[in-house]
C-alpha cells in the first residue's frame, strides 16, 4: 500500500486538519467530526446536511459553502458516519427552518442518518431526509438493498443547495432534491481496485486486461467482470444501461466523473464518446462536469451520471456556488 499518509488510523483526522487549514470558509469541528460553513447557519435558511464514508473527496466536505451544503459529516474511510456526529451537525446548522439530510442509499448510511434524525427530532429540529439511489448497475432493487447512491448526490446537493439559498422552505427543498434524484441515473466502471488505508490491500484483484462493470464508490467489486474495452465501448455500455432504465431525451446535465486515479485527459476521451452517443440519440447536453467529483480513493475508472433537466433545474444548477469543490458565479 502506497499512500501519502502518516498512519492508517490518522488519515481522517489529518485530512480534516488539512481541510481546516486550507479553507478559511469552512469550520471543521475536529472532535465531533463535522464540517460547517464558517460563520454559522444562515438565519431562516433550510440547512443541508450530507455525509458518508470518507475517501470520496471532494464529496462531501468540499461541497460545504454558499449555494450548496451547510454541513458534511465524514465517516471513517468508506464507513458511514455515526449518529452522534450527524446529530451534532444537524443541530449546529438548524436556523429554525429545518434541516434536509441528503443520504446515499447504503444500509449503513441510511441507518445512521435515521438514528440521527430521531435524536434531532427529540431536540425539536425538523428533519427531512432524501435518499439518493441513482446507480442503475444495481438492477433488481427488490432483491437488494436497493440502488446505491453515487454521482447524482453531487447534483442533488448543488440543486437543493441553490433552492435553499434562495429561501425555499424545507418541503420545497426536499421535493426538489427528490426530483433531481428521480431524474438522474449513474453507471460506474473500475479499471483498478483501491486500497483502504486500514485494510492495507486492495478490495479485489483485476487482471491486466480486465475491468469491473457496474461498480459503486467503495472499491467493491461490480456486477460483472469484462475484458478491458475502448473508452467508446465503455461509454456506450454505461449510457445504454442508463437509457434502458430511464429513456433519455431533451436537455440533460452530464457528469463524467473520475474515480480518483484516472487522469483528466482520459475523462475527456470518455466525455467525447458520451457526447457523441447522446447527440446520436437526440439528447442535448445542456450542462456538464468533467473531473473528479465523487471518488473512490485512488481507483482508476469513471462513472457517468445523467440528469434529465427541467428549466427550473437548469436555473438552479446555474445559480452561484462557492465551495472548495464546485465554484461559479462568485
Amino acid at each position, binding site marked *: 500500500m502506497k499512500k501519502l499518509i502518516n498512519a492508517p488510523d490518522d488519515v481522517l483526522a489529518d485530512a480534516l486538519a488539512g481541510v481546516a487549514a486550507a479553507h478559511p470558509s469552512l469550520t471543521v469541528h475536529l472532535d465531533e467530526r463535522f464540517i460547517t460553513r464558517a460563520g454559522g447557519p444562515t438565519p431562516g435558511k433550510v440547512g443541508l446536511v450530507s455525509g458518508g464514508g470518507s475517501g470520496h473527496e471532494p464529496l462531501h466536505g468540499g461541497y460545504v459553502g454558499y449555494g450548496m451544503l451547510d454541513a458534511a459529516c465524514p465517516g*471513517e474511510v468508506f*464507513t458511514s458516519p*455515526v449518529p452522534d456526529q450527524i446529530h451534532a451537525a444537524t443541530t449546529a446548522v438548524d436556523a429554525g427552518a429545518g434541516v434536509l439530510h441528503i443520504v446515499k442509499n447504503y*444500509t449503513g448510511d441510511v*441507518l*445512521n442518518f435515521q438514528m440521527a434524525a430521531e435524536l434531532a427530532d427529540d431536540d425539536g429540529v425538523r428533519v427531512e431526509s432524501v435518499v439518493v439511489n441513482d446507480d442503475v448497475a444495481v438492477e433488481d432493487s427488490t432483491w437488494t438493498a436497493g440502488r446505491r447512491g453515487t454521482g447524482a448526490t453531487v447534483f442533488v446537493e448543488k440543486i437543493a443547495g441553490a433552492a435553499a439559498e434562495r429561501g425555499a422552505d424545507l418541503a420545497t427543498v426536499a421535493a426538489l432534491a427528490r426530483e433531481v434524484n428521480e431524474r438522474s441515473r449513474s453507471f460506474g466502471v473500475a479499471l483498478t481496485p483501491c486500497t483502504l488505508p486500514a*485494510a492495507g490491500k486492495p478490495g*479485489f484483484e483485476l487482471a491486466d486486461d480486465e475491468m469491473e462493470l457496474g461498480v459503486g464508490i*467503495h472499491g467493491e467489486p461490480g456486477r460483472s467482470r469484462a475484458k478491458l474495452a475502448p473508452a467508446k465501448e465503455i461509454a456506450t455500455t454505461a449510457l445504454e444501461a442508463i437509457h434502458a432504465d430511464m429513456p433519455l431525451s431533451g436537455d440533460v446535465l452530464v457528469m463524467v466523473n473520475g474515480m480518483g486515479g484516472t487522469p483528466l485527459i482520459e475523462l475527456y476521451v470518455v466525455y467525447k464518446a458520451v457526447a457523441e452517443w447522446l447527440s446520436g440519440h437526440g439528447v442535448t447536453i445542456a450542462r456538464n462536469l468533467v473531473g473528479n467529483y465523487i471518488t473512490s480513493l485512488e481507483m482508476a475508472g469513471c462513472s457517468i451520471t445523467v440528469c434529465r433537466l427541467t428549466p427550473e433545474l437548469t436555473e438552479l444548477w446555474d445559480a452561484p456556488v462557492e465551495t472548495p469543490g464546485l465554484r461559479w458565479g462568485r
Partner: protein
Amino acid sequence: MSVLDTETFHRWIVETARLVEANADRLTSLDAAIGDADHGINLRRGFQAAVTALAEKPAATPGAVLATVGRALISKTGGASGPLYGTGFRHASKSLGEAAEVSELQLGAALAAAVAGIRQLGAAAEGDKTMVDAWTPAVAAYQSTVDGGGALAEATRAAADAAEGGLRSTVELQARKGRASYLGPRSVGHEDPGAASTVLLLRALATVTAET
C-alpha cells in the same frame, strides 16, 4: 439453575473485543470479497469503544452493561453493523431491565430481543445472507437447549455452534441485503462477514459462561 452477574456480562464484552481484534483481518477479508473491506476495522473500533466505555463508567447491572455497549457501538462503529449490533444490545438491555442477576430464561429472552431488534431495523429475513442468518438459529438453539433442561453453559455453546452453522449456510446464499446484494449472483460462494462476527460474539458468550 445458574445466574449471571454484571461481571460476567462485562467479561463477555471484553472477550468479544479480544476475539474481534484477533479476527479483524479475517472479517475485513470476508468483507473485501463481497462488501467494502471494512467490517473487521469497524467492529474493532466499535468494541474497543465499548470496552473503554465500560471501564470509564462501570455499569451496575447486566442491563446497564448492555446499554452502555449498545450506545458505544452506535456512536463509534459506523457502517451497517454499528447501528445493527448497537440496536441488538439496546433491545437486549431493555429486556433485562434492572435485574442484578440474569437467569438462563432471562438471557434467552434478551437474545431473542436482540435478534428481533436487528431484524426490525435491518428488515432482513433469514436467507438474505446477513448476520440474521447466524443470530436466528443461535437463538433457537439456545432456547431449545434450555427448554430441554440443558444448563446455561450448554445452551450458550449450542448457540455458538448454531451460529457457526448459520455462518456456513450463508456461503451458498445470494445476498439480498447490505452491500453484498449489489453483487447479485457474485455474492454466492462467500461467508457473510456480519454472520462471521456474530459467531465471535456468541463464542465469547459461551466462553465466559462455560464455568456457570
